[in-house]
């Protein structure tokens, strides 16, 4: 029994972006339907729950102005799908996968269900290949590997857009060598203001990856419910590029906070029991269904690396969206307003940032032999800087011991010379590590307890 081609006139209820249909049988769960208003406009929609008597659908489009009696529902008899193929490269789509670049729809031969399937954990390949962003604070201390998912936690007014664009411009895979053209970018705007999205598109066009970029734009004034679909279209495209066409794909999802709020809106409209701050209890699993689509698969060439951007609501790291994102992703890059106030770009808070997959992706044969030691020593030293700064703010710098003052000096140089860099400056990992040593020499050699002796011999003396 299939409902493909079936058309039904009349709804029984409209509530926000939810529509209730009665008197149809055999509507499948997650089936793709079109809702057509008396204005003749077609709004894509998806079945959220279904019974013998009818179904509830979420509408990805404006529902204002719809009437119960005159709205028509057209059934497709299958889940929502998206065409994939090499034709997608270089294209710009809206949040529902329709072209936004005044070109005809891509002539893709294959259409895939957008929900994706979980990667079998026994077939995942553990990520180990270093992705160089050219940003010292990330490459040295929160190194990213291909197939990782690592969000940027930020607040309104911080330079996350500059940072994300710089990463998109500069990202390279040193181990790829000649196969560098096998690098692609998928940019996903989720509720972004128009001008921000335009800046990203410009930056992507200006970067060397022109022609290897796909953009999906759900803008701030686009329908909220659409946001739940956009990342799934984008990840379906990314999976094709990575696991069929062999690309290393970097996916930027911006902004996950808008996505989470869309999920809450739909959940509330359905009358579901909320968990924390009104977010549905399945927020974690839902976010996981996006983020876990990052990774590598044994025997397939490409990879999907995700950098979601999460704007912390009122700077609160414990808010459900950043909190649950942090539980799914493999680390986080945290931007900090205090550091930004000191005029440092990028304002990355080194101690609260973390890359879980770092230890297997760095060191000899991957980045450089001294990298693990340098990273460990910098963490330890920065922790002491924080302690000294805290103390100085209470008892004054003059009361500090000589050692504590040394760490204050070190901390300033660390922020200015290693963390700080220009927006157009791409540092190789070797340049980054050399800078780290230059800063570490501010400390007495005896304090470098986290560095192996041989490494110290090789790098400490200039």
């Amino acid at each position: 029994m299939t409902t493909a081609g079936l058309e039904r006139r009349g709804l029984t209820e409209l509530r926000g972006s939810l529509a209730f249909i009665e008197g149809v049988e055999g509507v499948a769960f997650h089936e793709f339907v079109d809702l057509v208003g008396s204005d003749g406009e077609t709004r894509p929609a998806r079945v959220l729950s279904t019974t013998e008597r009818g179904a509830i659908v979420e509408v990805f489009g404006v529902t204002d102005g719809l009437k119960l009696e005159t709205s028509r529902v057209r059934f497709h008899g299958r889940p929502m799908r998206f065409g994939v193929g090499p034709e997608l490269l270089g294209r710009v789509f809206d949040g529902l996968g329709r072209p936004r670049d005044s070109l005809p729809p891509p002539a893709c031969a294959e259409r895939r269900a957008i929900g994706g399937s979980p990667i079998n954990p026994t077939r995942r390949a553990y990520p180990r290949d270093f992705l160089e962003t050219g940003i010292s604070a990330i490459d040295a201390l929160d190194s990213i590997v291909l197939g990782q998912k690592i969000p940027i936690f930020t607040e309104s007014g911080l330079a996350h857009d500059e940072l994300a664009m710089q990463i998109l411009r500069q990202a390279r895979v040193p181990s790829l060598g000649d196969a560098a053209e096998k690098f692609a970018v998928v940019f996903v705007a989720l509720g972004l203001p128009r001008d921000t999205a335009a800046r990203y598109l410009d930056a992507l066009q200006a970067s060397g990856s022109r022609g290897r970029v796909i953009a999906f734009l759900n803008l701030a004034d686009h329908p909220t419910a659409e946001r739940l679909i956009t990342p799934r279209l984008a990840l379906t495209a990314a999976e094709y590029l990575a696991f069929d066409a062999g690309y290393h794909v970097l996916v930027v999802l911006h902004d996950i906070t808008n996505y989470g709020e869309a999920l809450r809106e739909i959940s509330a409209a359905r009358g579901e029991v909320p968990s924390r701050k009104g977010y549905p209890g399945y927020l974690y699993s839902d976010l996981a269904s996006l983020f876990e689509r990052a990774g590598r698969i044994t025997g397939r060439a490409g990879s999907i690396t995700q950098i979601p951007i999460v704007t912390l609501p009122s700077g609160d790291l414990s808010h459900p969206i950043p909190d649950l994102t942090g539980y799914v992703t493999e680390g986080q890059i945290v931007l900090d307003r205090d550091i930004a106030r000191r005029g440092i770009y990028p304002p990355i808070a080194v101690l609260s940032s973390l890359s879980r997959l770092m230890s297997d992706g760095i060191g000899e044969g991957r980045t450089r032999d001294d990298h693990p030691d340098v990273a460990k020593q910098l963490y330890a030293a920065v922790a002491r800087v924080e302690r000294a700064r805290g103390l100085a703010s209470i008892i004054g710098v003059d009361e500090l011991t000589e050692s504590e003052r040394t760490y204050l000096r070190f901390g300033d140089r660390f922020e200015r010379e290693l963390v700080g860099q220009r927006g157009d400056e791409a540092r190789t990992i070797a340049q980054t590590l050399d800078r780290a040593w230059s800063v570490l020499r501010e400390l007495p050699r005896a304090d470098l307890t986290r560095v192996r002796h041989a490494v110290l011999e090789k790098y400490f003396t200039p």
Partner: protein
Amino acid sequence: MSDAAGRITEISGWVVRARATKPLALREVVLIGNERLIGEVVGLERDEATIQVYEETEGVAPGDPLYATGQPLAIELGPGLLGGVFDGVQRPLRSLADAEGGFIGRGTRMPALDRDALWDFSPAIEPGQNVREGDVLGRVMETPALAHPIVVPPGVSGTVQWIAAAGPRRVADRVALLDDGRELTMLQTWRARVRRPVRESLVPDAPLITGQRVLDTFFPLARGGTAAMPGGFGTGKTVTQHQLCRWAEADVIIFVGCGERGNEITQLVDELPRLVDPRTQRLLAERSILIANTSNMPVSAREASLFTGVTIGEYYRDLGYDVLLLADSISRWAEALREISGRLGEMPAEEGYPPYLSSALAAFFERAGRVVTLSGGHGSLTIIGAISPPAGDLTEPVTRHAGRFVRTFWTLDRQLAAARVFPAVSTRSSYSEVPAGVRTWWSERVSPQWTATRDEAMKFLEEASLIEETARLVGVDSLPERERFVLRLADAFQEGFLQQNAYDAVDACCAPARQFELLETFMRVRREGKDVDFSALQRMKMGAAP
């Protein structure tokens, strides 16, 4: 089974309702739709059945058929579990990947245990002998690291009429025949949500040594005991769990990846076949089992995964082994419970969790224990549950309820983790109700001074943290010399004892005698109250002489 036993009437995510035309049993396994997705009956009302489906239900429609199996959801037990990777309802993920490729599809059903694998069976009894439940019929070497006794299943007894001769047998082959005509194979099944019977429950009498100094020395876990490990994201929960997996002195390790990251499971899958057990020189893969139901795999199967793991754990316990089960994480399991409960339309209690959250947690943790098995041997099942409290809030329902059912509580601290002090176990908010048996074990096996020295170290840590608070207000320079010495020693103690490098070949695992030696050295310095070469003291843990 080919005839439909009903029709689907309603689908909402993992929960499906159906009108049954044949009687169904509560907890019976049913197959949904034309793809025959696996589900379990969780509610019956007149002819309407409520079903929890263990696979993605996209595309299922009202009117689709429902098939009955007449069987409850049962876990397969027998040789072939060790080294395996299973999903939450015990589907073998490696075989699934061979059949389907890199992505998990739908509707593929496979037995957990390979029906074709041959095991070298050697009988342990003669025809004519009377056997009761738990009695050993024979043995196979399941892996080079572990002998697997083939035992009479619970509830079965009789006189052996025939027993298979030594030689290769498949898991479902008959190996014994009883006088009542009953055939016994190497394969048993057991319902996941039901405890396996034992002859007697015992109190824990020894620690489960983990090789992790801060845990073994300060917050020991008993063999057959329970521990909860709450920690916010980034506090090193995963690394600590993996460390326990590698080094804990258990015969069999079961790791349940319950709603967590795919790459973490992959890391274990990659690593276990390469890691050598320092005690037996055998590979860890030869005595470990992974249950992997990652965060993007069906939520309903995530709920089942804990019980799948614990049932396998009880089975090896019943074979006379010390089993350690690590569940990562209990929070994701509780969230699955919450999601299913919500879809069932149940009345929520705190934070949307169902009112039976507490009893469900108890049902899980209470399956740990040290026992006399049905065959009269000893076995134990120790359970460690990681908890991912939202926003690191230890007063949230899952942490709070779990705290009531565990005897050991390891709190991971975000500040320690930010300073890269791992394992980031907070010495102030962790606790352990050390059973007398554990103290006796340390006194007899390691040193009669253990209790006194450990208590002294606890006092020292408390003293140091009080002084540190003062120092934060007035500066170290304003403190009396004696207190500055305590701070210096506390720093050295953190680096040289509490902190343990999981990635260092020497430091990753520390034997009990070595733990005590280090502890005693630090406490001696404390008693003498004089500065020593602290960096030398710190290097001691790496194997250097003091």
